């Protein structure tokens, strides 16, 4: 055992894999040809020494020790033939070796990275760059509409204008109800509510008023059992039809 050379303190290691890697380096052989069996022995001996010295051992190191003990027994015994899906002992050993190589590669890579000339530590940028002056040239955005609108505002403010409020025209619900009553028995198929608006009110601003009034009227008629209403989705068109057969009370 050469672990006497190692610090007998787990604080120096970044976990069990790191400890294994440090022990592997003690073997002074290429990781490609490392003996996992020997490594397992070293690790177990190291942990045993820790125990003997009554040093605190983190659970992770003990989990690894248990796993290595298991691996060691597998390596020493022939693989059980009945289970083809479970990894063989050799595969487990290779997986561990690969993992050690991965970690070693990253430890080396980290050292190489840190050895690179670093900005502000080894190499320096210009201490007082003058900067590249950027002259802002304003481009004014204004549309003809905005210009005309502004003139309109100004003109109106100065010259004023008589505000005439036209008498508002709207359809009352009573009117709509009256209209619908005339046709209520004559709609056997589903038809869109829109189709029942007064002709002169199907466009422009009157449309909303007529639509609201007519819709309210259809609700009234539906309530009294003369119409059926249907809407397939939110904000979708509203359909109506006559109730053909009077419901038995």
């Amino acid at each position, binding site marked *: 055992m050469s672990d006497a050379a190692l610090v007998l303190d787990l604080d120096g290691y970044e976990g069990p894999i790191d400890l294994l890697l440090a022990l592997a380096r003690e073997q002074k052989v290429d990781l490609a040809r490392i003996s996992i069996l020997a490594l397992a022995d070293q690790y177990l001996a190291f942990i045993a020494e820790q125990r003997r010295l009554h040093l605190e051992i983190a659970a992770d190191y003990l989990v690894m020790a248990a796993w290595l003990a298991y691996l060691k027994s597998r390596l020493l015994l022939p693989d059980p033939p009945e289970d083809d899906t479970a990894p063989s002992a050799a595969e487990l050993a290779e997986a561990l070796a690969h993992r050690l190589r991965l970690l070693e590669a990253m430890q080396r890579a980290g050292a190489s990275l840190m050895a690179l000339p670093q900005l502000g530590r080894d190499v*320096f940028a210009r*201490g007082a760059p003058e900067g590249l*002056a*950027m*002259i802002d040239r304003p481009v004014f955005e204004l549309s*003809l*509409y905005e210009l*005309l609108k502004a*003139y309109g505002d100004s003109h109106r403010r100065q010259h*004023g204008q008589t505000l005439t409020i036209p008498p508002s025209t709207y359809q009352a619900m009573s009117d709509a109800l009256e209209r619908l009553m005339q046709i209520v028995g004559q709609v056997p198929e589903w038809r869109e509510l829109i189709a029942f608006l007064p002709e002169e009110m199907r466009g422009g601003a009157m449309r909303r008023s007529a639509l609201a009034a007519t819709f309210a009227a259809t609700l009234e008629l539906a309530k009294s059992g003369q119409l059926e209403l249907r809407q397939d989705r939110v904000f979708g068109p509203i359909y109506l039809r006559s109730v053909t057969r009077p419901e038995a009370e």
Partner: protein
Amino acid sequence: MSERNEQLRLIEALLFAAPAPLTEDELALRLGEEADIASLLRELAGHYAERGVNLVALSGGWTFRTAADLAAALRSERTVPRRLSRAAVETLAVIAYHQPVTRAEIEAIRGVTLARGTLDRLLEAGWVQPKGRREVPGRPLNWTTTPHFLAHFGLASLKELPGIEELKATGLLDLGPAVFGDNLPPPADEAEPDEAEPDETAPDAADD
């Protein structure tokens, strides 16, 4: 010579990385007493004399500076979109419709005095210009729009500006909310009321 070369390289790097000019004393501290700082600086300045970057002695010490003759080439322009204030837009509109027009006339038409910066902004935009003087007491400047103004708004001539009657027809002179006017584009900035411009004062003189 090789040692001198290393000294030159170190001075070059020190001056490059320094956040402020370095004095010869400061350089001597870094390079050691045996280095001939003055001679090194002379050689380095000579090397950079014809380059895009020069080694120059300022009051505080030595530093690199980009060559003075490249100053213009180092600047570059960038266009930034700007919007005009409502006062400026109205003033522009008044000039466009009433040109040639004096400042006093603009103020009378708009009913407010012109803030100091308003005409400046329009001048900066290249849309208005002073053109001659009105032969009245005080000989005020006449203001007109520029060819650039026509080009910006895609107008072939001033005649293409819609007249007052046409503006009325499109509803731009209408008062009050155009509830039923679905044929107009949405108002540009209703959110910002006119009173937001503090430097516009009520008309002080109703002369015209």
